[in-house]
């Protein structure tokens, strides 16, 4: 069937337009590359920020999923109860995404479970880490006939996850749990398949208590797990553990508490078996020397009542280049969450652990030192 002249013309126009479009697309994509903005550029005012009255602002933040329920509750309470014009929008895209967006200055603040590494800070030199709350990872398991919480220690858990300790009734576990009837079955290991701060904290702890783990998989958000199967998110791990008899896994404390999962008492560096609670998590922070920039790992803390698998979660704020219209209400909000009784009550209601009182004064001083562009101090309250 011959093509008509009409069709020939449409075809020619199509090809010409495709080539032209491809050239334009190539030029556009090649020119405007994302990331790597100059350090002196002020952060972008995120979509439709309202700069008008003093206490009216729209802020956007992005980062870790672990504190997301808490932050979202705080921001809602802050807007409805304290500063009606301040709307804070938080996107739980993950710690990595939060750091990326903070570095690219596309958000007003970031959030991360793990502190930024030196390389990451080199790309974002104006960052101030602000610890907000403390979280903990608990070891959950599926064993029939065990009514009291299991007792485990770091080396044993590391060997289980390395695959060298294979059975539940292994002497290493039995000696920690005298009188408990452990089954003669293989341990089914479960881990987080998605990259997460939870895995980072857990592997950080394992690296500290087990040289074999440190030399092998090491500390990472997505380590190479020697044995076991992965579940996606806290929910995935919980599901797999619940459905697999004789399994072991790790989840966040607040998740375990809300879903009433059984979890183990861990032996800390002081030699005590500690039940993971808000108090024992806060105690972990009290026992470690916290540097000025708060970037520290508090796993395997030497304090007496400390739970060994605990960590801070951080807000990433601009030290001096934040726009005043955004930075000031944000710092006020941080001040509020640190001091307001209802905000701290929300922390315990959602099963997070508050900062130890020794740290609160230091964080207050940090908040007062934050500046916004133009050189003004960002914090209006306190002092």
């Amino acid at each position, binding site marked *: 069937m011959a093509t008509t002249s009409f069709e020939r013309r449409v075809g020619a126009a199509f090809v010409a337009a495709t080539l032209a479009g491809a050239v334009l*697309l190539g030029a556009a994509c090649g020119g405007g590359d994302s990331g790597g903005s100059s350090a002196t550029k002020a952060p972008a005012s995120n979509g439709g920020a309202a700069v008008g009255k003093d206490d009216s602002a729209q802020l956007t933040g992005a980062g870790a999923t672990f504190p997301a329920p808490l932050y979202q509750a705080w921001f809602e309470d802050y807007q409805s109860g304290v500063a009606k014009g301040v709307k804070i929008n938080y996107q739980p895209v993950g710690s990595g995404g939060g750091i990326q967006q903070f570095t690219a200055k596309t958000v007003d603040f970031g959030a991360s479970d793990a502190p930024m590494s030196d390389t990451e800070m080199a790309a974002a030199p104006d960052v101030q880490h602000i610890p907000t709350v403390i979280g903990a990872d608990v070891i959950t398991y599926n064993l029939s006939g065990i009514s009291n919480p299991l007792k485990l220690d770091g080396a044993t858990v590391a060997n289980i996850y390395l695959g060298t300790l294979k059975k539940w009734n292994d002497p290493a576990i039995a000696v920690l749990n005298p009188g408990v009837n452990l089954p003669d079955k293989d341990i089914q290991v479960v881990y987080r*398949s998605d990259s997460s701060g939870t895995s980072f904290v857990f592997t950080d702890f394992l690296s500290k208590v087990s040289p074999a783990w440190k030399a092998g998989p090491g500390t990472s958000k997505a380590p190479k797990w020697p044995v076991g199967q992965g579940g996606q998110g806290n929910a995935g791990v919980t*599901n797999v553990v619940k*459905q697999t008899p004789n399994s072991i896994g790790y989840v966040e404390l607040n998740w375990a508490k809300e879903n009433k999962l059984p979890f183990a008492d861990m032996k800390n560096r002081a030699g005590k078996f500690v039940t993971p609670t808000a108090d024992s998590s806060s105690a972990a922070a009290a026992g470690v020397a916290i540097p000025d920039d708060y970037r520290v790992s508090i796993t395997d803390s030497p304090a007496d009542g400390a739970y060994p698998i605990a960590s801070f979660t951080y807000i990433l704020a601009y030290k001096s280049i934040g726009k005043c219209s955004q930075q000031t209400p944000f710092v006020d909000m941080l001040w509020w969450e640190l001091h307001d009784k209802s905000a701290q009550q929300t922390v315990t209601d959602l099963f997070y652990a508050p900062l130890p009182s020794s740290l609160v004064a230091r964080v207050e001083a940090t908040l007062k030192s934050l500046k916004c562009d133009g050189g003004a101090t960002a914090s209006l309250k306190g002092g």
Partner: protein
Amino acid sequence: MTAQTIPRSEKPARSLQNRLKPGDWLFAAVTTAAGLVVVLVIAGMFYELTNEGWDSITTNGASFAWGTGWDPSHQVFGVGAFIVGTFVTSVFALVFATVVAVLVALFLVEIAPGWLARPISYVVELLAAIPSVVYGLWGVFVMGVFIRDQLGPLIVATLGWIPFFNGAPLTTGLLSACLILTVMILPTVMAVSRDVIGAVPRSQREGILALGATRWEMIRIAVLPYARSGILGAAILGLARAVGETLAVTLVIGNSVQIPDNVFAPAYTMASVIANQFPEATALHRSALIEVALILLAITFVINVAARLLVWRVTGGQRAVVQE
């Protein structure tokens, strides 16, 4: 002798012919633009993936394609284990889904009466409408338990002498992923097979029946050979879907970077590793994941093109050509 033509100046100014011309060109322009957008989107995808994955392509080189180590914390990247996982689960699903789908299609076209064929056809196509995440949850809560408690022990009992089938049945693992993919691509393969088998001309069927063939002989001799390339195309379409299936597989495959040594062991697919690790990935890790995505896109593209060509050979339709 010259044909009578109306000189342009004498043509009526507001004839029907003249009024339609702007509309025609507008229509042509709009549809051309729409087609253009589609082509540019696909080209744009390839370009962006290559661009963002360039770090990984240059750093990891060719060994990325067959290396089986994947350790982001030590900057070791290799897509081999994921390709094996994707390949094994997809081919398993392809084989089993095609067998079942062709049988169902033959039933619907050759054997079932019209009042029965239509509802069954509708129900099978409904399987394609179920969201992927629902399949994943069904796989975790229903099928996984079935494998762990019934199907798994049965397989170990009957086929356990083969090392590959001897393992501890869990709710997640290679077998779970294979079965869930089979169920998910079944409606696609069935629908296309049914159309392909229906497109076999009546003359073929009547001819062989006139020679004294039974119904099964008719199907075997007249229908299936004629529809063979079309069924193959349908199967490959199903394969394309299976290769890219992300959420349902991620929930049931166990997510372990290894080449599974038995059918119940956890494994990993290309789509799953991207879904699991991309949100937190930075630098080279992110670039490596994008390179995985590029490989996945290329594979899916090739499979789809091959499938479409095969299907069109038989059905003759679906082409953007007005039939004469």
